[in-house]
């Protein structure tokens, strides 16, 4: 089985007056096209882990492999390119650029990769936004949408470059329970349609239970690793 993402002996120590170690010798491999949930109590190290997986943060020790390639020797530019092409991020905050419309926000990762905006890519953006139920607000300034619409726009943005991995850190953390439900249904639907590896941090038991695999982090260590 091919791994989309692999962590090898990852430690993370935050510097400071008192250096604190938050991850201890993490070894994890996520199979291609799998749907994974990471759970754990607040402060256990989940976000730190996800940011290291997404190459936004560097491990103090150990290696991150993306699509069977080590990221250890990549430059800042190399990592930026890797993120742009192969990883889609969804955070607890939508992080849309308020200066741009919803559609323009969705197209941003593409424009970062190449300045050519073809008809195909615009069509794809429309399709994804349609799938997300955003057709009506496509041309809204991103600040003038509901929280659920903003988060779904952020998900559409994460999908536009057809990344092989989606990393989501409590993507529904700021949404009400009904919107949370529809958002997760969308994520599962995308997973089935697009052959993408999903790694999602969540507090929601019901969401976790629908995942192929649940990893629980406790005090910076893997406390539970369960396949369904």
């Amino acid at each position, binding site marked *: 089985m091919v791994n989309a993402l692999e962590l090898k002996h990852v430690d993370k120590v935050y510097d400071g007056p008192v250096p604190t170690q938050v991850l201890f010798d993490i070894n994890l491999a996520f199979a291609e096209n799998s749907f994974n949930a990471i759970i754990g109590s607040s402060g256990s190290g989940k*976000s730190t882990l996800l940011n290291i997986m997404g190459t*936004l943060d560097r491990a103090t020790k150990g290696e991150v492999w993306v699509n069977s390639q080590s990221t250890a020797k990549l430059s800042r530019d190399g990592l930026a390119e890797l993120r*742009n092409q192969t990883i889609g991020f969804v955070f*607890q905050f939508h992080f849309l650029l308020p200066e741009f419309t919803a559609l323009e926000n969705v197209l941003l990762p593409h424009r970062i990769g190449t300045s050519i905006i073809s008809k195909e890519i615009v069509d794809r953006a429309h399709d994804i936004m349609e799938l997300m139920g955003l057709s009506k607000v496509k041309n809204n300034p991103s600040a003038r949408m509901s929280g659920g619409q903003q988060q779904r726009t952020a998900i559409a943005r994460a999908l536009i470059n057809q990344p092989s991995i989606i990393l989501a850190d409590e993507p529904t953390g700021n949404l009400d329970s009904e919107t949370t439900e529809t958002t997760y249904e969308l994520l599962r639907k995308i997973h089935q349609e697009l052959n993408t590896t999903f790694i999602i941090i969540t507090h929601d038991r019901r969401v976790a239970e629908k995942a192929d695999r649940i990893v629980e982090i406790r005090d910076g260590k893997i406390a539970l690793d369960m396949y369904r």
Partner: protein
Amino acid sequence: MRLALAIASRFLLSSKSQSVLIALGIGVGIGVQVFIGSLITGLQVSLIDTTIGNSAHITITSRNADRTIDDWQELYARVSQNPKYAATSATLTRPGFTVTNNQFETILIRGFQLPQADGIYNLSQALIAGEFRSGEVVIGRELATELNIEPGDEITILTGAGQRSQAVVSGLIDLKVAAINRSWVLMDLSTAQELLKIENLVTAIEIQLPDVFTAREEAERLKTELDEYLRVENWKDQNEQLLTGLQGQSTSSLMIQIFVIIAISLGITSVLAITVMQKSRQIGILKAMGIKDRQASLIFLFQGLMLGILGGILGIAIGLGLAFSFTKFAVNPDGSPLVPLVIVPTFLIGSGLVAIAASILASLAPARRSQKLDPMEVIRNG
């Protein structure tokens, strides 16, 4: 490149009033600099014009004992053929005295080739009464007042060589310099030659140039062409003090302009630094999505560039507006501007470029901050 440009312009457009204010700030600074520059240039041009506009730029005189030039017709023919000269004229000048109405005054007897001398002294325009007439003389305004003379009256002239003669005053002239108006007695060349009993001789050949600042070089060149006994003088050597004054003006105007530019740069730097802070969230998320550090820094360079272009255009407009209204409000009693408006296109373009350069320079620090920004700072703190 294109993305950075697009983001930069979107950032500027999304906070329009702030962008307009920054551009206006640059514009006012550059405007002041355009205004001061044009004013100083205008001042200098008018100062040079009043000082030497109506006088010879190069004067050829003689070292002969009696100060006369041999074969002056031949020399004059040669010099006046030079197409680079705006005007050339031969003149006979001698000191003398006048005793008229019981007043004793020192005078300068000046015989001019008319109308050639007009090209240098603008004599016909300077006449305030009467005219030039062969065999008669025109005297300066102040001299006429001192002697209580009106056109048609006679004056008595004593030459340096002791001849005494009477001359009818056919006109009065105002050459705008009190010393000249108080001493000159002007007439045509042959009248002067007759009065002074100097047959067919002149004491100087005077030249005016289209570009006054080439006088020294042109005089040097002439010197090598002419006979040893001839002396070639130029206005620059005779007006060292004026030139030093102009130099001082230029330097102080340059200093003012440099400080204005420094002030603008500091202003833009601090404002752009604030916009990086305002936009750090956006930069962080763009970096998470894979924008490269160089692109992220280009966003702010482009912002600086666009603000600079806008500010430069505004600045030129403001500066010209200020200069123009200055010529309308600061006027002489006769309505003519106190300082004439002198617009040098290269100076305007230069000021515009300065605005752009200063803005780009000022955006270097913000661009660097943007380049160094770590996306984790944004992601972690929301």
